[in-house]
Structure formats: C-alpha cells, structure tokens
C-alpha cells in the first residue's frame, strides 16, 4: 500500500501582499511530492481554520512578511483548536524577528522558518514531523 501524500494548506494571513516567498515554497513542496492548497492573499483566521478542516490537511502553514504574525496567530490558535486541529503540524515562515519566536511557539507554531531559511529545511521538517 502506498503512503498517503502529505497534504499542506499554505495561507497568506491578513492584508500582507508579499507572495513571492509563499509561491516559491508552494513549488518546493509540490516538487517534493506533497499536495499543496495555496489560499492566495488576504485570508482571515476563520477562513484558514475552515479550509484546514474542509481539506483535511496534515500541515497548516502561514507566510507572513508584513509584521502582523503575532496578532493573527493569537486569533487563529483557538479556532484551530475548536476544530480539533491541534494535532496537525502548524508552521510559519517569513519576516519573523527572533524576539517573536518564543511567542509563536507558545501559540502552537512548532516550525518557524524566518527569511533566509532553505527550502529543503522546510521540506525535511514537514516529512519528519507529520504524524
């Protein structure tokens, strides 16, 4: 029996319009054989939680470059938990200052990939941590 393909939701949270990095990561995950649902820009926390549930994904990934990652993740966490998605892998990448990493981990984002992260590091992390 073949293993189920890893399924990833990659979302652009809030009003941030920088999508070059998100689209590069989408391509890297697809090349690595994963199934990727890319949301496009301007997703609300509610929309991200709904798509994650509806699409039955293994990984919920955010790409944030415009600085609003902490308020967004604080709103998203209870919504994901309310939908029983706390056992999925939560990742975030983008412009994430080191001083915010502890706060992001406390909000349930185990994988943190700031600007400068390698694509293979993201792929490897997902393969290793998807249950």
């Amino acid at each position, binding site marked *: 029996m073949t293993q189920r393909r890893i399924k990833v939701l990659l979302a652009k949270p*809030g*009003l*941030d*319009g*920088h*999508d*070059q990095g998100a*689209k*590069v990561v*989408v*391509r*890297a995950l*697809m090349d690595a054989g994963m199934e990727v649902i*890319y949301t*496009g*820009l*301007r997703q*609300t926390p509610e929309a991200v939680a709904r798509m994650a549930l509806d699409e039955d994904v293994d990984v919920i990934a955010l790409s944030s470059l*415009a*600085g*609003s990652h902490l*308020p*967004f993740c604080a709103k998203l966490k209870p919504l994901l938990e309310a939908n029983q998605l706390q056992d999925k892998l939560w990742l975030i990448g983008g*412009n994430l*200052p080191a*001083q915010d990493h502890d706060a992001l981990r406390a909000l349930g984002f185990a994988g943190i990939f*700031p*600007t*400068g992260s*390698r*694509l*293979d590091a993201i792929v490897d992390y997902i393969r290793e941590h998807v249950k």
Partner: protein
Amino acid sequence: MNDRARDELKPVINESGIEVKPLYTAADVEASGGLDMVGQPGEYPFTRGIHRLMYRKQPWTMRQYAGFGNPADTNQRFKYLIANGQTGLNVAFDLPTQIGLDSDDPQAEGEIGRVGMSVDTLRDFEVAFDGIDLDRITVSLTINGAAAILIAMYLAMAEKRGYDVRKLRGTAQNDILKEFIGRGTWVFPVEPSIRLVGDTIEYCAEHAPKYSPVSVCGYHIRESGANPAQEMAYAFCIAKAYADEVIRRGLHIDEFAGRLSYNFNIFGNIFEQVCKFRAGRGLWAKIMKEEYKAEKPGSMWLRMIAAGGGGGLTFEQPEVNIVRGAYYALISALSGTQTMALCSYDEAYTIPTEYSARISLRTMQLLIEEMGLTETVDPLAGSWYVETLTNQMRQKMEEIMAEVDAQGGIVKLVAEGAIQARVSAQAYQMQRDIESGKFRKVGVNCYRNEQEEDHPVEFHPYQEEDARQQIAALGRIRAERDQPRVDQALARLSADAAAGRNVMPALVEAVKAYATVGEMTGEMVKVFGRYQEPIRF
C-alpha cells in the same frame, strides 16, 4: 587545458539571458546593431538621458520611502528626512489604507500604521503634510488600489492650503496591473481597475497638468521573479495598456504621455542594469514616436525613479547590505534616473529606523558630493561592452513585448495569472540556484559566518497606542462632519461609477466632505465588485 583557459571558456549568461563575452571590441558593437540608437542626451532617442545636461544642472531627487503609525508620527519623520537633505517625499501607507479599509474596520485590526501611515480622511493628509512646502518638496504617494481616492485627497489638501493645483507637482504610483503580478494591494477586478487609472490620467491632464498620476512599476515585477529585460518589457506593456485606455477616451498621446513616469529596480549585475536603463530609454522613445505618433519630446521621455534594490539585499550579515546599497546607488546614478531611493540595510528585518534611513541618504549624497557622479552625462557611453549590451538588452525587451502581444496582450495574461505563474516559476528557480550555490550571494551561499552574530538591527517598534489614537480621531471626524453632504457626495460617486463617468470629480467632492477611504472604496466595490485572484502554478 589549464584552469585559466577553462574559466575563459565557461559561458557566462546574465540574468536576462544574454551571453557575456570576456572581451568586447568595436566589431561587437557593429554586430549588435551599431550606434544608431545612441544619439545625444536630451535628443531623440534619449538613450543617453532625457535632458541635455542631466545631473550637471540638477542632481537626482532623493526620495526615501517613509511612513508609519499615525499621520503626526509620519509628519515628524518627513521633517527629519528633509532636515537631513532629502529633496522629495515618498509616502508609505499602511495596508488597510492601501486596500481601502478604514482604521475602525475589523479587518484592519493589528495592521493600522504597521507598514506605513494610516489614512482615513482628508484630515490625515492635512496633519501629515503640515509645515511642508509642497512647491519645494514634491510628494510621491505609494498607493495603488486606493490611488484614485488618495490622488483626490492630495489635490484637495493642496488646494485647501492655497496651492494652485494647476501648477502642483507630485506623483502617485497608481499602477494597478503590477499589483496583480506582485505586491498585491488590489481592490477591484482588472477591467474597472484599468478604467480607474484612466480616470486619474484623464482628470489630471485637464485639472492638474503638472501632476504625474501614474508611475509604472517594473520594480515589483522584478521583485516577484522577473529578470531585468522582462522587468522593463512588462512595464512598457502595462504603460501601453493605460495609454490605450486614455486614447480610447479621445485624448491625444501628447496630452498626457509627458506625465507618465516609471519605477525600476536597481539590484543585480552593474552593467546589465545600466544597459537596461539606457536600452529602455531608447525603446520607450521609439514606441511613443513610431507607434503612438507622439510629437512632444516630453511624451517620449522615460522619466523614472530607479530605486530600491530590496530583492538583492540579504537577511544574512545585514551590515554588508550597506555596501550593496552603495553599489546599487552607483547603478542608479549611472543609469541617468530622475529620482533615487535606496532600500535600507535592515530592509529584510523591519521598516527603516531614522538611523538606517540616514545611512541610505548619506550613500546617495556621497555620490553627488565626493564621487563625481554628477559631473558628466552618461559617462559609460562609448564603451564597446556597454553599447553592445545596450543594443542586446533593447532587442531582448522587444522580443519579450512581441511575445506578450502574440499571447493576447498584457491585460489578458495578467487577468489569467499567466505572468504571475511565469515570474513565480523563475523566482523558484532562482531560489534553487542560490541554495545550490550556482547563483552566488555573499554571506548566503559563500563567505558565510559559521557563527551568525547578533545582528546590529534595531527594530522599529509597533505602537498599539497609535492605532487607538487613529481610530479615536476617525470617530471624532465621523461625529463632527456634515453628514448630509457626505451622503450626497457618496451617492454621486456611486451614480458616476455605475454610469461609466469619470469618478474623479465625485471623489474630490467626497474627500472634501471628509468621506472616509473605506466609504468611498465601499461605494465603488458595490458597482465594480472585487478582484478574485487566479491561483495558477
């Protein structure tokens, strides 16, 4: 074969796909098309510069991108930059303003004043530009989705302060097609968005003839993954789409083309960049003259800000970005730009602090005061390499433009997401090439610090208090303004939008009544709808 001989044989291909030889001679210039397109500065085809004396007469305008928090904070930063020798303003708006949301909109929460200044009503512009002489300091508004509204607001603010709008200079970015490709601050669907750009050009041609209502941006297309030749070719395709929209309304090219301007990127190989600008100037002049039958020289000028360079800066070893920025500024000066702005060294981390913005300003001032970059026009002209590459870059751009036309035109390709998919595939390939070491980046894939040091980057703090003040100020304006006048102005806006009339007069009226950015956008969304992003890989 020894190593040296092997190195000489290894082909070098620049980002635009042109092979670079180890040595150039007069024969290469001849083989690439000769010197027919070179000419003299200030004369058609303007390859060497749009003015005869260029910087010898007046150095480039220095216009660092700035804006954060509420308008009072931004006003202070503007005054700081002007006191430090900056000669123009380049206004950053927060994301809610950029996409037409008011500060008290629930979607704006956490984003107010974060990446730029927050603007809800005319009052905010009155505060932001208080005490700044708008005749001496020209203002560029980095606004796209909400551009028609903010242009109306700027003209109304200037008029209220007693300036003659017919003589007022300034620029709005207002290039919506590139927002669909990269940057992402769109609001309306593609067709009505182009119509709004047409409205602003048409309105300014009649009422504010010195104002530049559009700055077509190759810049962000390059940031999204385009190579330098594509950057300029796609920008020209976009500018032609706007020109066609205005010509359809019965204006002659010479009535508005002189106020079209451009924004291009400056990171990358020095020679490829400089030749990109020289080639682009000649090509745009030729397009305007031959295709559009422009007669005024001003209509043929590629007026531009050559700026930024963010895509070339690195997160690793950020202090090295100060040096990269200096080379980018050199490129910009050698390119013959009218205006320059530099991304600050902390670009990959945060919006610039006063300190980093001042370093960028000093970098440009060094070129003027110490390095002799303003003394002689187009100093690289006549180099066999530069003239050959200028010809080759121009031919490359022409090929790309012909390809876009053959595929149905830029509007169709953007609406379908085809350009977006193309540049994003290239961005992915570039990232792979950087990670494999094929495309060298100092500090990233070579000369890395084994132990990354604590980076000397100071963060610009986000002030929750600014957001609260902005929302409170908006509440006061809503309570104090003449509501029937607002309602009437918004009704006219809605009617004009639905009837296909130019919405600018209605916007100016609504702005003067202190209608909010969100209210005006909302009226137009009811008529035009919202853009749906095509997802395509």
